[in-house]
């Protein structure tokens, strides 16, 4: 690998100020992504940030890279197409818990099975922010929201367990209150070959009055501080992924080396699809036509 030339944060300064509420956890994520890209020295032109729809999904507009602000729940699919179209690009997906674990959970699970080289940062605020405060798939039981005035009656999604079950090869959790730590995790995910999930506790200061900064601050601890923790051991990973309540782990949960989907594609061996000449050579074309005789 070539030596990395780190890039300063301003490299990625976006065209407009974020439209998030003051104090929104997403500011921390934006910063951490910039830090991660900078540390890895990824040029803005080589980075595509793909999002869905939601407060969190507005992120591509606030950073100086390529971006697709796609449809609610479809970011992972769009990003997969981009990656397969040009695998020289670094493709980072950003979005919310509703976007990724609610409407988009099918793409999420199937993308992990594929182990495409994508980095997925989910700004998990346990609420639907942009639509003004309904329950999300990570909303905890009994929490009252605009759509659950009697308390949420569903078990929250456990994204980390889903990720382990479905074949993601890099699984981490960050917290907006720890942007430096998060930046490390995101950088690790981008550098990792394969599907990387970074679930981030990114508090919604406007609509989630339960899972606030203090709530998380009191509870989170870093896996890295536990010397016995082995992110290659699935059993340990599952154990920690189930931990919730007074103590909630953040950090790198799991990492595995597996071939990526791109590795399996013969068409990608000679370079990105987007750079290949169009059309068929005469021999191939003639051979194809001959099959019809």
């Amino acid at each position, binding site marked *: 690998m070539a030596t990395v030339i780190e890039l300063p944060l301003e490299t990625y300064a976006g065209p407009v100020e974020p*439209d998030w509420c003051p104090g929104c956890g997403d500011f921390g994520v934006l910063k951490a992504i910039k830090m991660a890209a900078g540390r890895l020295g990824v040029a803005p032109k080589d980075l595509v940030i793909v999002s869905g729809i939601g407060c969190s999904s507005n992120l591509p507009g606030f950073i100086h890279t390529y971006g697709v602000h796609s*449809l609610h729940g479809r970011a992972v699919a769009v990003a997969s197409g981009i990656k397969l179209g040009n695998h020289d690009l670094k493709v980072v997906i950003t979005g919310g818990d509703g976007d990724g674990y609610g409407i988009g959970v099918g793409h999420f699970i199937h993308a992990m099975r594929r182990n495409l080289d994508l980095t997925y940062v989910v700004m998990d605020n346990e609420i639907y922010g942009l639509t003004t405060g309904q329950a999300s798939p990570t909303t905890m039981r009994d929490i009252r929201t605009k759509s659950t005035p009697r308390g949420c009656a569903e078990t929250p999604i456990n994204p980390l367990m889903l990720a382990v079950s479905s074949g993601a090869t890099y699984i981490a959790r960050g917290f907006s209150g720890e942007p430096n730590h998060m930046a490390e995790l995101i950088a690790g995910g981008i550098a990792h070959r394969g599907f990387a999930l970074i679930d981030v506790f990114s508090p919604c200061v406007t609509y989630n009055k339960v899972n606030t900064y203090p709530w998380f601050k009191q509870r989170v601890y870093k896996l890295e501080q536990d010397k016995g923790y082995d992110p290659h051991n699935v059993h340990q990973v599952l154990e920690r992924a189930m931990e919730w309540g007074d103590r909630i782990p953040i950090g790198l949960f799991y990492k595995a080396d597996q071939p990526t989907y791109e590795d399996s594609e013969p068409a990608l061996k000679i370079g990105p699809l987007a750079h290949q000449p169009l059309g068929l050579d005469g021999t191939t074309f003639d051979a*194809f036509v001959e099959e019809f005789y």
Partner: protein
Amino acid sequence: MNEITVGIGGAAGDGMDKTGDALAKTCARVGLHLFAYNSYQSVIRGGHIWLRVRIGQEKVRSHGDTLHAVIALNQDAVERHAPEVSPGGVVIFNADKFHCDIALLPDNVVTVPLPVSSLTKTFGKTLPVMQNTVALGALLFLLGLDSGVCAQVLDETFRHKGRDVVDLNVKLLMAGYDHAKANFVPLGTEWTFSGTRRPFLTGNEAISLGAVTAGCKFYSAYPMTPASAILHWMVSHAEKSGVVVKQCEDELAVVNMAIGAGYAGVRAMCGTSGGGFALMTEAIGMAGMIEAPVVVVEVQRGGPSTGIPTKTEQGDLNQVFGASQGDYPRAIIAPVDVEDCFRSTVEAFNLSEKYQMPVILISDLLLSEHPETIEPGALTREVPIERGEIVRGWNGDGKFKRYAFTRDGISPRALPGTEGTLHVAATDDHDEEGILISDVFTSPPIRRKIQEKRMKKMTLVLAELPPPELEGLQDADVTLIGWGSTKGVIQEAAEQLAAKGIRVNRLHFKYIHPFHTKEALEILRRCKRTICVEVNYTAQFARHLRAETGYSVHDSILKYDGEPFEPHHITEEALAILEGRPRSLDVTEAESREMAYHYIRTHLGESARPASVRRVEANGYGEPVWVLDIVTRDTGAKTGELTIGVETGSTYNWQPVNP
């Protein structure tokens, strides 16, 4: 006679495709033309499959009206199709297993019962499907076709299974051929074998080949009849053509991935049928909004909903036109025949990239799945590839504006990875740079201007599409109108009508959107009487035509029973219309037999069949009521009577003989 239709009937799993294929290749290689249509069901084994292969000295454009020879691979096929054979024709079957009640045969139709086991007893162990090859051999003789060419085809087909299999098959073929030669007279076909070899392929194959020829490098799909064959072709040719073929988890992923690849600068296509397309519509609107190219193939099948998945229809026009919310630029193209599938796919890629928008190819089961011979030159590698301008860098003179307002509405496209052209492609509406105008910085005038910018592109698109043309007489009394796959069958019907002295011409539409309103109206205003022919219930195209031009066709000929038009359907209905005879929705005698089959198979089992049909007094509201004798298959003994049509249509009463 220089035109023949052969029908091969059996069940799924009876191996009819191989037999049909061998017949077709044989004909295509000696210079004959072909059109085949396979009527099948959504079942893996069993059901009733009915393959028709029409062979002609000249180009044939449908599976035709007349059945000359039947190869029946089971008893059902004997019974159901023997009555349909035209005088002079034959019914070929394995006499060891099946029999043909003489009463079923029309005048001057003969049976060709093949003593398969005695013919093949010296060949060692044979399998049931080998009866097919014997029958094929007999057929070749009866049609005056060369068994040698066919033997060659079998050789190529079975070569991968080893010499022994090839030899066995050729022996089976010749056994049938020789047996027929010894015992029967040929049908009296008069062929001139031009020797021109012609490719023989389906619409789906033409679309696939068109795609890779045009430089398609990404194809995503989720299996769905009748579009799956594109997936199968693409994936089996992926390595050689350098295409990434991705089967996805659902159609939402399919289309979103294709759009992602298109955005990244790859020619990307995806394909599905109506139900899958329904799931794609939201993303098609996205492609319109972010101005990403993508080609979407919608192969229609019988709807609504899951419908009749292995049957044809042109019923998704409303859906394709109405795809996604709001107004956005796009094109909809309906290829008119197999050759046109190749051409249209190339065109779709060019339009989608030049105008940075989604292009939808709308085909149907008939067009996509039926094979026909086309002229050798029609498939060419030399297709135009027009990508539109792609900015390969930016000198920094002003900010790069991905969505710049330009006179023609086409803004400079830049691909991710390019220096200096960074931007966000957003589905929220945005300004010229791509900055949202939906959140903090809302701006009605910018919204107005950017919507106008996007839609402006449609003017150019329309200008480059060829306008519709009137075909045939310029001053006809009747104009047959159609769209998409029905072009050929309408042409044949028009010829039949002309032969009956009707002064008829044709107006066929391939470009559905944008629409040549002016040119179409100019033609339509000159038409004296218009009849629109289409394969759906509500005359969706006639409505579309009225929506685009204000012109209302005088009459419609509609079919929505799942089977494609045969020329005579159109001819007869057109004559009825011209003679002022109203269309009747009554159940006909033939239909009552088909309904009886359904009742028998669902309620009485395999051992019965309908025999004679008689019409009794009408029901309360003037519709016919049919009574059918149901007999046992083996003895022909009557087991009961089935009454059809008591209440409007098919209500049946079953009266067993000995209750």
